[in-house]
């Protein structure tokens, strides 16, 4: 049974697109058939992060409006056979996405794939509510930062009221993915700790992605981080999170890169 997963956050710049690409790819690396759908009409970026920007011909809006067939718009990943991307349009009017049209496309995608990962735009407007509308489960991406936590709370409220599942009175599975986490700063109480964020938002934890330069390095070259360097700390965290999504029990930890040594502390701390 195909699952529709929305990656959402409220606040922009917390890592929704990076996480959509990394989680989708990690699921594909586990053998699942995955499509990642970019809902950020007007500001598409998933194609760039996944290294497919030069292969976009048709997009989500073309499919919703019936100008292209789904098969024409889907871009199959060059590295992974079972991973596809449905890009967003950059130029068209946001109003072109209709609830009914999106529903049709999602239903068609569910026939072809095991996972439909919807990368939501930031905010609480139409684009974000459309991205979450048909979701079976949601990943709320948050940074350990006050504005991000507050906006996550708003989004959790929307997930509980504006999704089809919520309207039918069915529970919508919600998970928290904490990104850009610095365990050492949290230990020194300079950063909200995992426990703080969990207590405030009270939804189950899917994973903790450590702050790492590997994330930027991967997006620079257009490869999801779990493909670009599968052994690095953020990749391992995303892989664990993906395994948890499939129902596997994986012990929660914050992976660290080997250079957590004194040298690493002295020279490794750079702004991303």
């Amino acid at each position: 049974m195909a699952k529709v997963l929305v990656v959402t956050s409220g606040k922009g710049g917390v890592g929704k697109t990076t996480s959509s690409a990394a989680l989708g790819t990690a699921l594909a690396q586990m053998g699942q058939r995955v499509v990642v759908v970019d809902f950020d009409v007007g500001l598409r970026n998933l194609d760039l992060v996944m290294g497919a920007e030069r292969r976009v011909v048709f997009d989500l809006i073309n499919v919703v409006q019936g100008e292209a067939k789904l098969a024409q718009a889907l871009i199959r990943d060059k590295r992974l056979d079972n991973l596809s991307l449905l890009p967003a349009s950059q130029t068209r009017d946001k109003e072109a996405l209709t609830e009914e049209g999106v529903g049709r496309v999602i239903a068609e995608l569910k026939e072809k794939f095991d996972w439909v990962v919807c990368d939501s735009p930031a905010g609480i407007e139409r684009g974000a509510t459309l991205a979450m509308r048909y979701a079976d489960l949601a990943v709320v991406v948050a940074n350990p930062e006050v504005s991000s936590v507050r906006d996550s709370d708003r989004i959790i409220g929307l997930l509980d009221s504006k999704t089809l599942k919520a309207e039918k009175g069915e529970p919508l599975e919600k998970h928290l993915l904490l990104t850009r986490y610095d365990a050492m700063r949290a230990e020194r109480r300079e950063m909200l700790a995992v426990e703080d964020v969990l207590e405030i938002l009270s939804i189950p934890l899917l994973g903790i992605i450590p702050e790492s330069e590997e994330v930027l390095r991967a997006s620079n070259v257009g490869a999801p981080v779990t493909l670009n360097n599968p052994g690095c700390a953020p990749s391992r965290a995303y892989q664990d999170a993906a395994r948890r999504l499939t129902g596997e029990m994986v012990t929660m930890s914050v992976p660290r890169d080997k250079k957590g040594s004194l040298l690493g502390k002295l020279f490794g701390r750079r702004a991303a």
Partner: protein
Amino acid sequence: MSLFDFFRRPTSAPVARERLQILLAHERAVIGRSDLIAILREEILAVIAKHVTMEPEKVNVKMERGDTVSTLEVEVEVPTSATARAGKKVVEAA
């Protein structure tokens, strides 16, 4: 204040946590309340409209939350002709 404290910056995470807890407690109440009022207004309107003709704009729904008691105030302005048509059904504006 020891020499050690002098070099250590004060921690900010506990402050962030407390600010968030207070803010979100407030926001959750406000947001939940505004939704509730909208839903109540719609449903009360529908019930009254079944029995009397009235103008939707002439309905006021207010909620005041006190420490111990909260009051819900519904004010419906009903035209006399409409009440007459409704016959024995009496609609009270509270």
